[in-house]
């Protein structure tokens, strides 16, 4: 297992190093394709290599056509299997936090919750890898109010750190009958306003926590971004009358998330490279928006 990991890591680094050359090649092929499609003469710098490149173009299929970047590489094969999530908390959680984590277990399909006890993070992650989990989610709190969420993709994937605000749990709504039970069908996802590169990356991380749903499921989970604050909402919809009438009923917890860090390793790798970190002390930070509009 260790050697396999080492090999995979070496492959990854090799592919990362090849990226530059591959990109150049890809660009050339693209130019030729364009020229051919439009009927224009092939650009002069490619004239010598044109024949060889043309042959390669003919042999390409959809997999090889797009150059692979190392950035979302972790999720390249993630769609082959359904995600398997482990949920846990920080140490000595309070009762409201335990309730919140219980709710989250129903939000994410195929999720398992374990008690934290006195385990060390690295232990947890090792055992997760051994049992083939794809993601691990950690929830932190402040005096009963959940205030932190850490999502770590498992083989050696990225870790995203979020801060939670304005948390409203299902337990707060006392009327149990009104809420009812939470449905457990695979939900549809709506990711709104994730426009920048960082936004796309975050969207990817959040997307791959959920399995592929059936097309006709009634459960919707929304991550809506507004000026770097991502709102999480969980609804069930019903179509009463014609095609245009939709009735939404909100179930599940509701909170705002604020991304403050993305690391390129798992939680226990403290020396992993930081992909992005929030910088609130900059003078221009008030004007800039990192995730979307």
């Amino acid at each position, binding site marked *: 297992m260790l050697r396999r990991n080492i090999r995979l890591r070496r492959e990854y680094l090799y592919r990362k190093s090849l990226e530059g050359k591959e990109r150049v090649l890809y660009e050339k092929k693209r130019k030729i394709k364009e020229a051919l499609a439009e009927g224009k003469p092939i650009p002069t710098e490619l004239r010598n290599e044109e024949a060889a490149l043309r042959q390669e173009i003919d042999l390409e299929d*959809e*997999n090889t056509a797009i150059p692979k970047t190392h950035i979302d590489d972790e999720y*390249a*094969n*993630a*769609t*082959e299997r359904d995600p398997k999530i482990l949920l846990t908390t920080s140490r000595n959680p309070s009762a409201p936090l335990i309730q919140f984590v219980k709710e989250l277990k129903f939000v994410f399909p195929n999720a398992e919750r374990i008690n934290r006890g006195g385990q060390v993070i690295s232990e947890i992650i090792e055992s997760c890898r051994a049992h083939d989990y794809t993601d691990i989610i950690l929830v932190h709190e402040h005096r009963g109010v959940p205030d932190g969420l850490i999502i770590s993709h498992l083989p050696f994937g990225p870790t995203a750190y979020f801060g939670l*605000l*304005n948390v409203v749990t299902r337990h707060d709504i006392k009327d149990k009958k009104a809420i009812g039970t939470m449905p457990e069908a695979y939900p*549809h*996802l*709506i*990711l*709104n306003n994730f426009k920048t590169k960082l936004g796309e990356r975050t*969207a990817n991380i959040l*997307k*791959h926590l*959920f*399995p*592929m*749903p059936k097309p006709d499921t009634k459960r*919707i989970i*929304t991550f*809506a971004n*507004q*000026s*770097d*604050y991502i*709102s999480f*909402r969980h*609804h069930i*919809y019903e179509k009463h009358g014609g*095609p*245009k009438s*939709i009735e*939404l009923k909100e179930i599940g917890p509701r909170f*705002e998330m*604020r991304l403050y860090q993305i690391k390129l390793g798992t939680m226990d790798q403290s020396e992993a490279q930081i992909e992005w970190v929030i910088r*609130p*002390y*900059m*003078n221009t*930070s*008030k004007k800039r928006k990192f995730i979307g509009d």
Partner: protein
Amino acid sequence: MAKPSETGMEALHHLKSTDPPALLAPSPTLSQTARTASQHLFSCLKPYAPKSPFDQLLTDGFDAEQIWQQIDLLSQPLLSTLRRQVKHLEKHPEESKIVLKKENEFLDGERKILEEKETKRFDDDVDDDDMDMDMDEFDDEEEEEEGGRRESEKGESEDESGEMVEGKGGEGIEDKFLKIKELEEYLEEDEAREYGLDRKKKKGELKLEEEEEEEEEEEDEEEEDDDDDELDDEYEDAEENARYEDFFGAKKKTVPKRKSSLSNGSDEDSGLNDDGAVEKKGGLSTHEKQLEKLQSEIEQMEKANLEPKTWTMRGEVTAASRPKNSALEVDLDFEHNVRPAPVITEEITASIEDMIKQRIIEGRFDDIQKVSSLPSTAPKEVKQLDENKSKKGLAEVYEEEYIQKTNPAAAPISFSDEQKKEASILFKKLCLKLDALSHFHFAPKPVIEDMSIQANVPALAMEEIAPTAVSDAAMLAPEEVFSGKGDIKEEAEVTQAERKRRRAKKKRKFKAEAVKRMTKKARDNTALLNHNEGNHLSVPNGGLFS
């Protein structure tokens, strides 16, 4: 009168010496002395008067009224000059000393005359009781003063002017025709008629105020001031309407004030000022009130500026330089560089839900898409059972098996697809190459002999990919390489007969070849000829007609 001045003086003295009761009863002698006295005074005053119609006072055959009129005529023009002079002397008190020194003796004489004149006035005109009393008191005050001499001239002039002023209550603009006092009286009557206000009451109030204010002053002064004020009040509007004094200042009040100040020195100035202020309160306009407010504000601000600033206004303040726990009370304002957390309102929730509904209607979700991956193993070949009866007989099947065992190369190929065959051959070659690269001890597979043509190539070139040495040993066996026949003899070994036989053989062969060549040439020539001739459309020899 031979010596008018002396007679006059005597007359004055005489008047002074008479008993007061005697003055009450009219007597001709007394009257005559009075006339002479007044004549004397008139002539004394004459040189100072700018212009007067009379050279001397005409007393014969005139009654009191007419005499008074004459005196009036004389003294009227004097008033303004005297007033001016008084003001001037007020401003420059040192000049008065100079003046005084010159006219000391003259003044002494004059003073006495004045006293006598006072008494005369008292006895002649009973109406002016108050004023005379005033004058008496004023005179007494003058005598009390330290610089009595200094004031004497002023006293004389002021006496006159004071009387006049008391009587008139105006300055500058007044003359014979326009009397401010009369104007004010008229206006007051009019307004009282219109508004029905209680003027008298107000005047009384004012008077009280003033009495309260004047603590420092002497009784005499107080009385005098009261009287002054009474007089002033009569002529002043107590109802706080805009009047002449508001714009041009209450000049009447300041004049008696000034007089009293002059007589009493600077001690009572503040009292007088307060007096003045208090008096002003009664009749303030809105503009004046605003000014007052502004003034008070300005004073406050100036006071505040002088004091040390509060700690919040000072620059860098440490905990030691401000009072304890004071930072908790103040609302400190920091500049935050982060956008504040969003407050979730109804509108935001509604907008999110609208967006969700829109997406549902469109069916545009962001679920994960299954990426089609390359199959890592080839699809298994499914062998279908052929249910048709086998075309080959059993014997033939056994035959094929036997051939396969003994001579594998001769066996018929069992592949269904030509392309598959080709592909499998290519793959075998590839595998062979990879094996050669990756194994330390490579042993190639045994070559199956099939009837294939052997090329005359060195053996190593066929078998080894990475030749370590070059060898020129051919794959073919020597007898295959050799392309000769039978026994080969060296040149040295060949016998004579043998040589002859060889030469004859060679000749025969050469001849045969030469004949062949000749016939071939002949045939070619004819063909060429025919062809050439064909072009010219000539009929060949063996043409149609032959």
